[in-house]
C-alpha cells in the first residue's frame, strides 16, 4: 500500500528550504559533515534546549518542521529509525562513570541516553498518545520505520487523514567519530568526497516526514514500496521488487544511489544498477555524508525532486547524460558498508 509524503522536516549538513523550488546544495572540504542546525527560537523553548544533546535538538526541530509543513499538530503514530541512538549523552554518562569511578553521578545524561528519547520527546511535545516505536537496526533503521508506517496505513485506510510521523536520525559526536575512524571507515582529514581513496565521509542528520494514505495540497510524492534486501543477488532483488510493484527496470527514470566515495564499494554498488538503462543516476552522500540513516536524506531529496520536477545539476553522477525534465519514478538504492542494501520507490503524484 502506497503512502503520500505530506510534510518534510530536514536538518543536515545542507540548508534545504522545502518550500523553495531551488535546491541549494554545497560541497564541503572535510571528512566529516556536521549538521547546520536551525534557529531553534521558534521550535524549542530555551530552557529545554539547553539540556538537549544534538540528536534530540535536531530530531525535535525536524519533527516540528515536518508537522507544520503538513499542517498537522499531532500525528497518529510516530515511528523512527536511529542506528546509534543518543550517542553524546551515552558518551557523556559512560565517561563520567569511568572517570568518577561510579561516584557523584547525575541522571540527566542517563535519562537522555535511551534510544527512544527523541520519539518519546516528540510524543510529549505534540501530545501524541498513539503508537511510538524506535528501530535501531543499523543501515536498515529508517527503512524498517518506513515499512512499518506503510502497514499502519493499510490497517487504517478507513480513518480519514491517518498520519504517521516517520524518519531517520543520527548524530556523529567526537568520540564516535574517533572510534569509527579507527576502523578505517572514513577518509583522511585532508581528503574530501572526491578523493579516490578508501573510506567515506562521516555524516549526521535528522530527516522526518509526515506520511498518510491520503494526499493533500502539500503532498510531495507517493512512496510505493520499500525493500530491505535480504539476498546476496542485488539485481535479482531489484527485479523482483520492481515486478511486485508492476514496474520494470525501464520504468525507473531517476535513481538516487548511495555511493559514498569509498573506492572499495562505489563500483560494486553502481554495477548492481547496470540493468537500469533508462535512469539518471544521482548521488546524495556527497551532500549529507555517510551514516546509517542517510537514506532518510535521500527520501527527502527524492520527494523534493518529484514535487518540484527539478533535478539539481550537482546531483548527477554523469554530467554528460541526457537530463530528464519530468522525473516520474524515483528509485532510492542504498547500502551501508555493502550490507543493509535497500530499495525505496517514489512516484510523482
Amino acid at each position: 500500500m502506497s503512502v503520500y509524503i505530506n510534510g518534510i522536516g530536514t536538518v543536515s549538513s545542507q540548508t534545504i528550504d522545502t518550500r523553495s523550488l531551488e535546491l541549494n546544495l554545497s560541497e564541503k572540504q572535510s571528512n566529516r559533515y556536521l549538521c547546520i542546525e536551525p534557529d531553534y527560537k521558534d521550535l524549542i523553548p530555551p530552557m529545554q534546549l539547553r539540556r538537549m544533546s544534538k540528536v534530540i535538538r535536531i530530531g525535535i526541530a525536524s519533527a516540528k518542521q515536518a508537522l507544520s509543513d503538513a499542517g498537522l499538530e499531532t500525528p497518529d503514530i510516530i515511528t523512527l529509525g536511529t542506528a546509534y541512538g543518543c550517542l553524546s549523552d551515552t558518551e557523556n554518562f559512560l565517561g563520567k562513570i569511568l572517570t568518577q569511578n561510579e561516584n557523584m553521578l547525575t541522571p540527566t545524561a542517563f535519562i537522555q541516553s535511551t534510544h527512544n528519547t527523541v520519539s518519546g520527546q516528540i510524543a510529549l511535545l505534540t501530545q501524541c498518545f498513539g503508537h511510538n516505536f524506535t528501530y535501531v537496526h543499523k543501515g536498515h533503521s529508517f527503512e524498517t520505520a518506513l515499512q512499518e508506517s506503510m502497514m499502519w496505513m493499510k490497517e487504517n485506510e478507513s480513518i480519514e487523514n491517518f498520519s504517521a510521523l516517520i524518519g531517520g536520525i543520527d548524530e556523529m559526536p567526537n568520540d564516535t567519530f574517533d572510534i569509527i575512524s579507527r576502523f578505517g571507515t572514513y577518509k583522511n582529514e585532508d581528503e574530501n568526497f572526491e578523493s579516490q581513496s578508501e573510506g567515506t565521509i562521516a555524516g549526521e542528520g535528522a530527516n522526518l516526514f509526515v506520511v498518510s494514505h491520503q494526499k493533500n495540497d502539500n503532498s510531495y510524492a507517493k512512496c510505493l514500496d520499500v525493500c530491505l534486501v535480504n539476498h546476496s543477488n542485488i539485481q535479482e532483488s531489484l527485479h523482483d521488487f520492481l515486478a511486485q510493484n508492476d514496474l520494470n527496470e525501464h520504468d525507473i527514470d531517476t535513481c538516487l544511489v548511495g555511493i559514498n566515495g569509498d573506492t572499495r564499494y562505489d563500483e560494486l554498488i553502481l554495477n548492481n544498477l547496470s540493468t537500469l538503462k533508462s535512469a539518471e543516476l544521482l548521488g546524495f552522500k556527497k551532500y549529507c555524508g555517510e551514516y546509517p540513516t542517510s537514506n532518510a536524506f535521500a527520501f527527502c531529496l527524492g520527494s523534493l525532486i518529484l514535487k518540484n520536477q527539478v533535478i539539481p545539476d550537482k546531483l548527477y553522477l554523469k554530467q554528460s547524460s541526457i537530463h530528464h525534465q519530468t522525473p516520474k519514478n524515483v528509485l532510492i538504492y542504498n547500502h551501508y558498508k555493502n550490507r543493509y542494501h535497500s530499495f525505496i520507490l517514489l512516484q510523482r503524484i
Partner: protein
Amino acid sequence: MKTEIINNVWIAGLGAISSIGLNVSENLKSLRNQNSGIGYPMFLDTIHKNDIPVCEIKMSNTELEELSQMKSHLPRTAYLSAIAAKEAMMDLHLNSGLISQSTSLQSLLSSYRIGFISGNTLGGMDRSEAFYNEFIHDRAKGHLRDVIHHECGSITDLVANHLNIHHFVTTISTACSSSANAIIHGSRLLKHNKLDIVIVGGADALCKFTLNGFNTLMILDSQPSKPFDENRKGLNLGEGAAYLVLISDRVKEELKLKTYAKVAGYANANDAFHQTASSAEGNGNYKAMLDALTMSKIDRKHIQYINAHGTGTGNNDSSEGIAIQRLFENELPLISSTKANTGHTLGACGGLEAVYSCLAIEHNLIFPNLRHETQMKELDFKPCINLITDIEVNNVMSNSFGFGGNCTSLIFSNEKN
C-alpha cells in the same frame, strides 16, 4: 474497511534465560517454588557490589559463551540472546508433529520466510565500558573488538547469524518495552503476510551503565524489591533474554504444530507525560491495555491474569495499578509482578513475561507476587500472593512500560476462545 488481519498469530516455541533459570523449564520450576534471583553480583564489576542487590545469572561470560556456542569476546547480551533464541527454535522443533519424519530443523523450515526481531536497550555496553576505560585516557587505545558490537543492532545481527536467519532481521529499542514491542512488530509482519515464522523477544545483560543510571534516579531498592507493596522502595535490576516463535495459521497446519497460545491482542501507546515518569492516572498504560483488549475482542471479565509491569518503584506501581482499576473496575483479574523473582530485565522483560504468560496458560497457573505485605493505599486491590493451581487460565494480559512514555500491553489467549 480493514484489509489486514488475514490470520491468527500462534506461539509455537518458547525460550528463556534469567536469574531464576537457564531455560524455560528451570524458570517455570523457580516460579512454582517462588524463588528469586536476587543477591549481590558475582560477575558484574562495580563499586556497588556490596550495596545494590541485582538478579544476576550466575554464569561467567566464558560459561555463557560455551553454552551459546558462539565465539569469544562478544557482549554478554549476545550470549544470553543466542541461548534463549536457540531454545525457542528447538522448542518449535519439538512441538512439530513432523519431528519424526524430518531430519533437521533446518530442512523442516527451509521453505519458509523466517524473521528475527529482538529488543535490547544497551547493545554491547558491557564491552564498550571495557573499551572506554582505556580510550578515555588515550584515544589510540582500547581493543576495537570490544567496541565493534556497541550498537543494539549488532547484538541482533550476531544472533541472527548464529541462528542462520536472514530473511528479515530488525531491532527495537524503546527502553523497558523493547521486547514486548518486538512481539507486536512480529505479529504485524505475520498478519501482513510478510513472514511465515518470526522469532520475537529481547535481551539485556547487567552492566555498570544501567546500574549507575538507575541509581542516579534513586529508584533502586537496596533490599529485594516489593512490587505493589505500600512500602515499596524501588526496583532491582536483572538480566536475561526470552523469545517466542510466532507462526501463521498455514505454518501451524503444515508443520502440525502444537501451540501454547495465540497473540490475541496488542497495543502500544504513549503516556506523553514525562521522559522517565508515568502520569498519576496511568493514561498511557490505560490506553495500551484498552486498545489491546479491544483488538482481542475478549471481554475484560474473561482475562484471568495480568502479569503486570510491576517494577516496585513508587511511580510505576501506582500508575499501573490505577490504570488497571480504571479499566477493569469491579471485574479485576488476578494480578502479580514476576519482577520480584527476576528483577527488572529492561529490554528482555516483555519477552520474559510473555513466556511466563504462556506458561500460565499452558499449566493453568497464577504466579505469586513475592514479598508483598501491605496493600497500597491508592489501590482497591492487592496482588495475588499465593501460587494458584486450581484455576483455568485462558487469557492473560502482560504489561511493559518504559522510559519515553512507552506503554505496551499484550494479550495471550489459548485455543478454546
